């Protein structure tokens, strides 16, 4: 099959049902997209469980454990599809260097407080939802599209969990201050999640091949269209507003910006930095990167060592 034949098939709305019906280029693009999705879901589980240590009551802990379990299930879907593309998933998950994981930098910054946990549900799961919904609506890969129906339903619960807790905490002055502190670093962090601006990244090919339907800037807008009103409803300050004239959401802070990962603070005074600087930070990875990946890989490595000992 030539690239033109494939593109024509996708443009006519037909789905691709397996790698044998596509070109190497398509499979490589799909592979990369699935690794980002699987890694993001996977690493969110230990990231959330870390924050759940500070759950205010046992039922809250159970809720987060349920959410983490859902995320592992979503990761499994992505990795299962990768296996069908010929990927060695064991090596991918258990033997890869933590720095080579493809989840967004946001998860490399540890979630410590309960406020950060619920804002992660309200913001990060919302970002995940925006990205997955875009894939669900526009993906040309049939097996993934069908699997995403269930994923979306479950993510819906995570979002609601975040929203409910944000509302509860916002109603109490002391807890509201903690909530605001979490929002102060996590809002900009989620904006960064969507990646390079459209002026620096061409999406034409990814869209033609049905890897995604919206550009990074469009997805950032989609995210702000519900994340900003959620905060406004509870009187939580965020550096963004809706501009009636241009009918877009506008970021009212230097973006992109330098981030102090130890203090979890944006250096707004330092002004806007370049995306090259941001990409360097992403590449270095953040403080929780190794710890979270190690949690995923620990049991596998222990088992391998004890089997070696027994042999």
């Amino acid at each position, binding site marked *: 099959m030539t690239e033109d034949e494939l593109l024509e098939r996708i443009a006519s709305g037909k789905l691709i049902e397996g790698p044998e019906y596509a070109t190497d280029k398509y499979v490589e693009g799909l592979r990369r997209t699935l690794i980002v999705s699987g890694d993001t879901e996977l690493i969110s589980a230990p990231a959330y469980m870390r924050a759940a240590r500070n759950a205010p009551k046992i039922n809250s802990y159970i*809720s987060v454990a349920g959410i983490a379990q859902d995320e592992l299930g979503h990761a499994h879907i992505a990795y299962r599809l990768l296996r069908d593309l010929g990927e060695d998933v064991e090596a991918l998950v258990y033997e890869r260097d933590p720095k080579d994981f493809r989840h967004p930098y946001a998860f490399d910054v540890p979630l410590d407080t309960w406020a950060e946990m619920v804002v992660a549900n309200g913001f990060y799961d919302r970002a995940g939802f925006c990205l997955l919904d875009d894939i669900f609506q526009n993906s040309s890969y049939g097996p993934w599209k*069908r699997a995403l129906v269930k994923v979306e339903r479950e993510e819906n619960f995570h979002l609601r969990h975040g929203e409910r807790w944000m509302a509860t905490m916002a109603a109490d002055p002391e807890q509201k201050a903690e909530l605001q502190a979490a929002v102060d670093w996590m809002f900009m962090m989620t904006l960064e999640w969507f990646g390079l601006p459209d002026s620096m990244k061409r999406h034409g090919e990814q869209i033609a091949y049905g890897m995604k339907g919206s550009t990074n800037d469009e997805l950032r807008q989609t995210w702000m269209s519900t994340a900003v009103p959620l905060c406004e409803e509870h009187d939580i300050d965020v550096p963004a507003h809706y501009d009636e004239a241009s009918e877009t959401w506008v970021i009212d802070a230097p973006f992109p910006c330098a981030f102090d990962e130890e203090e979890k603070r944006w250096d707004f005074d330092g002004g806007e930095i370049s995306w090259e600087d941001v990409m360097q930070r992403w590449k270095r990875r953040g403080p929780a990167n190794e710890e979270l990946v190690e949690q995923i890989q620990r049991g596998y490595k222990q088992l391998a060592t004890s089997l070696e000992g027994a042999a």
Partner: protein
Amino acid sequence: MSATVTDLESALRRVHDPEYPISVVDMGLIRGLAVDGATARVRLTYTSMGCPCKEMIADDVRDALLAVHGIDAVEVEEVYEPWSHRDLSRRARSTMSELGVA
């Protein structure tokens, strides 16, 4: 005029499970409804002991019943009666299969 059990049930038919667009009634979670003056009593179970959505479901049920005309108090009793897929209504089953949940 005081509320009836039918009023309570129709209010609960608008309360969806947090994950699926299926009402808590069709999910088979409501194990008893009663009206005592202005108090609504509901016996509620969950699909599992460690259901992560417990609080959300109980709160949604409480809010929906409080919104019923003639009700100003709600007592939710969590009964933890066993639940299985057989408790799903026919409607719930068809929604589930549309969503690809076996």
